[in-house]
């Protein structure tokens, strides 16, 4: 399952590619979820993973199961959409956000933030903490969206496993945390519950970047490590959607390994902090 970039000439693989395309088409036509333009090696790996887990011999068999059993569809959907996240992931980014972007947002009377692909909410809570510490929380509305409703339910709880907390604390400190991180949570068994007041001005809602339209104009959009799962065409589409949803002189934040790939889009932004991948819309 390594070396996803190379598509081997072996007919078996070709067949499998075809099968996966058919599976995705089926899912789109039947369930309405459009994974057709996701990054294909990623899909291959995820599908294979599901095949192993369900003990199925071929993708076509999986397709049959997926179309007749919403349970399996749910699991496959989870494979496609549950992505990795952590609090204050890439602390440098959050530090830059704190130093370069939030001061500019302070000037505004009302701030709208869209966090596209919030997954299980770790980043949303990080953002909420950041805004609170910078005195912005009262006039800010965060829209945290994700395709996966199960993830969203998780996110609403604001409860994370204790196992990652030491890392999160380190991240928080590196991101320029102004308080003791422990002020924000209490431990209950092996879960850490974050202060529910943090999510007061966060709306968790389902939104599909692939099929859904823009739903507001924002001053800040975070879409981190989402587009890496998409192919070039879809990346372009999503970048256009983000551009459409961003106010002029608003900020766009991408993942640490992502960039603006569409040349027409590149001209619309000036880099605020290239390392942190923060861009400001200029036209």
């Amino acid at each position, binding site marked *: 399952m390594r070396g996803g970039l190379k598509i081997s000439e072996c007919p078996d693989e070709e067949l499998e590619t075809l099968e996966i395309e058919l599976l995705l088409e089926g899912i789109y036509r039947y369930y309405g979820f459009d994974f057709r333009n996701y990054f294909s090696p990623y899909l291959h*790996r995820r599908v294979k993973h599901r095949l192993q887990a369900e003990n199925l011999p071929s993708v076509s068999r999986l397709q049959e199961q997926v179309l007749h059993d919403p349970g399996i569809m749910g699991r496959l959907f989870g494979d496609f959409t549950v992505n990795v996240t952590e609090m204050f992931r890439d602390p440098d980014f959050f530090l830059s956000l704190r130093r370069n972007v939030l001061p500019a947002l302070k000037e505004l009377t009302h701030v709208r933030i869209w966090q596209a692909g919030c997954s299980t909410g770790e980043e949303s809570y990080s953002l909420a903490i950041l805004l609170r510490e910078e005195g912005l929380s009262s006039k800010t509305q965060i829209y945290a969206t994700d395709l996966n409703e199960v993830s969203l339910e998780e996110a609403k709880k604001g409860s994370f496993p*204790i*196992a990652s907390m030491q890392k999160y604390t380190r991240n928080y400190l590196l991101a320029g945390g102004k308080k003791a991180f*422990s*002020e924000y949570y209490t431990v209950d068994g*092996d879960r850490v519950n974050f202060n529910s007041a943090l999510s007061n001005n966060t709306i968790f809602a389902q939104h599909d970047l692939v099929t859904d339209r823009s739903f507001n104009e924002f001053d800040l959009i975070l879409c981190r490590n989402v587009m890496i799962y998409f192919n070039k065409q879809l990346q372009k589409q999503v970048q256009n959607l983000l551009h459409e949803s961003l106010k002029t002189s608003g900020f766009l934040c991408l993942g*640490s390994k992502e960039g603006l790939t569409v040349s027409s889009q590149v001209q619309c932004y000036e880099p605020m902090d290239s390392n942190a991948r923060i861009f400001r819309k200029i036209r």
Partner: protein
Amino acid sequence: MRFRSKLFIGFGSILLLMAFIVSLSLMMLHDQNNSINELVLTHYDKIQLATSIESERANTAKRILDLLLDPSRLTPQEIMLIRESRQKSNLDIEEFLRTNDENQKRELLTSLQRINLAYEQDVNKVLDLLVAGKREEATHLFHTQAQDQVRIDIQEKSSDLQTLEHTEMYNLLTQSTQSYNFTIRLIIFFLVLALGMGMAVSRWAMLGVSRSIEHVSDVITRGRNRTEQMPRIEIISKDEIGPIALAYNQMADSIEQHTQQEELYKQTLQEKTLLETKVSEIITLFQGIPDLSTMANLFINKISPIIKAHFGVFYIREGGSDENERMAGHYFTPLASYACNMDLVKGQRIHVGEGLVGQCAQDHQEILLSNIPKDYFKIHSGLGEASPHSILLLPIEFEGEVVAVLEFASFHNFTLFERNLLERILKIMGITLHSVARQVQVKSLLDQSQTLTEELQVQSEELQLQHEELRSTNEQLEKQYRESEQKTQEIEKVSQFKTEFLANMSHELRTPLNSMLILAQTFAENKEGNLTPKQVEYAASIHSAGKDLLELINDILDLSKVESGKMSILLSEVSLQNLKNGIENQFSPVAHQKGLLFEIEISPDLPQTFITDQQHVLQILKNLLSNAFKFTEKGHIRLKFYQPSAETIHLKGFTQTPVLAVSVTDTGTGIPKDNLELIFEAFRQVDGTMSRKYGGTGLGLSICRELALLLGGTIEAESEIGKGSIFTLYLPTPVSTLLEHEPTVIDQVAAFSMTPIEKPKFLLPKPVSLEGKTVLIVDDDMRNIFALTSLLETHNMNVLFAENGREALDTLSDHSAIDLILMDIMMPEMDGYETMRAIRQIPEFVALPIIALTAKAMKTDREKCLEAGASDYIQKPVITEQLLSLMRVWLYERGTKN
């Protein structure tokens, strides 16, 4: 006439006229002056004289009257004054006469003179009289009628004179006014005349000048916008305009010449600019071009109309990227075209030197073809087709190498301009092509690297995800394991209870049962002979049933003992012969009784003795044999001791050799294949009905198997319905030499089991417990230590404390099992920062969680804490809940590690 003469005449005549008017006015003014002089000097003086005459008379009269009234005042001085007055009036009259020559006045004056003289004489007489003192006479004389008449006459005459003079004066004034008016009129007339003349002359002079200038300016104006052919001025007048016109005409000549030259320059310049414009137009076209094909297309489609080519192909060099085939491997292939179907030429490969395209590439020189044969090549349009007039091939070079070739065809000859343009552009094209190619390469590399980075990110996220999944699977597994363990424990407990219960019960049962058996046997013996045979039979039945019951109880006890691991093993050297004898003794009578053949066979290759627990082996064999006898009605029963084949040993999974096999073969009812395994389970027989037919507890085989397992062996059963069964016991028999020492008692089964099964290790974690964890509190404030200690001890934590950094280091070196440190910052001697730094220096404690307790919420303090090596910080005063949460977080990993 010249301008100068004209202006002289014009302005001269005006000046003359003005001079005339001025002199006229002067003359008149002079006249006026004269007449006024006369008026004032002559007539005024005369009026004055006339008035004086009258006043002198009045004066004289008054004085005389005064003297008459008061003769005392008569003095010679007074008389003098009167005479002087009289004399003066005479003089005045004479003066008047002298200056006057008019008759009327002369008469008047003469008469006045006369009267005045008479009056003088009278006055003199009066005076004389007065002097003489004859006042009465004088008064009388003075007031005579004649006297009065004289005075009136003088008065009248002088006033007549005055009137006359006034009349004359008035006349003169009237005359003067008239002459003044006339003069004014004259002056006005001349002024008007002068103005009129001046205007006429000026107009004449102006017109003359302006007409000439207008003519010139007209011509110049006409020529203003036409520099190439300017109008000339006809030289008609002989004035100063003549030279101007001449000069202008010369200038026009030179301007025309200049313009022509300029035109020429302009044209060249225009051509140059056009060239530059086109060049820059084409260059700007290439900005932000993503790839060569787009660039070539853009270029060929742009340049062809500019150079009026009707057909164009762009060949690009390809292949031979390898150093070796650099020259040999190159070929040119069409990349873009103008007015040409690309599909027709696509894929064409033209090597260097091949055809004109190849030749052009080889020579690095353009090739121009004219006089193209009619059937050479045709340019099509919807309406028709025709051969081009000329074909042009051009190389595009970069760093001395031809990187592309252009081919154009046109219906006309390529002009110099077009070829210049091409030449200029081609120079740039080489560089541009190269840079675009570079750009494409860089972009593709960039894209590739971006894709790879993203792919890497995806994969790393997936890995993380899989890790996450693994963890959750593990968690589940562990949960299951824990649950199953719990269940096992429960089951164990239950079975323990069962065993204990059974053991106790058996014991409790056996005691009364034994008494019952003994009693029943006593009854059955009927030693006293007082029982009826029926009663004896009953007693025997009770005894036999009791014995069965006892056997059952013993079996149950055995089984439970084995199951609960309470069965002990006593290893000893066992002789096969002894074993055989014992069995033979026990079962031969039974065989005999049932009419069965009973054989015991010992394979000769077996050693005489082996090491095992004789008791248990015997018990197993007895069980098997009694079963065999129970279920066999006829035929034979065979007990066989033998050495199994190596293959069988391997198959049975024995690692220890040698292995002893003991088989019991019968010719009984047999057991269905499905039930072969079942029969080893406790309280089972092939079917429920059997027990009634054959009796027995159904525990025998279970006990056998358990015992066999206990000894490290196993029991196998083979059977066929109606033909009989073979039960084989496999026993590992350690070589006796190894056990030459005293037979050892090994307590538990574990000794024989293969390898101890270890409790699986899990990545994941139970809820974090603070219990049993050791915390070191470093604080110089005993109250804090006390408060924290009592808090932590309620959570069953072990608390150590140190009052300063040095003590903390000592404590750490003494107790390596410290799980977490709570570190106050402000301490004497060695503060928190220093202590933390010192702790982090020790390799053992690099990862030890240290929580800094900061008194201040200062940002710098926090940063200093982290820099010094704190894992986290918390602000004092400490909130209990927060501290406990924090400690759970930081004790988490250590909890799982240990």
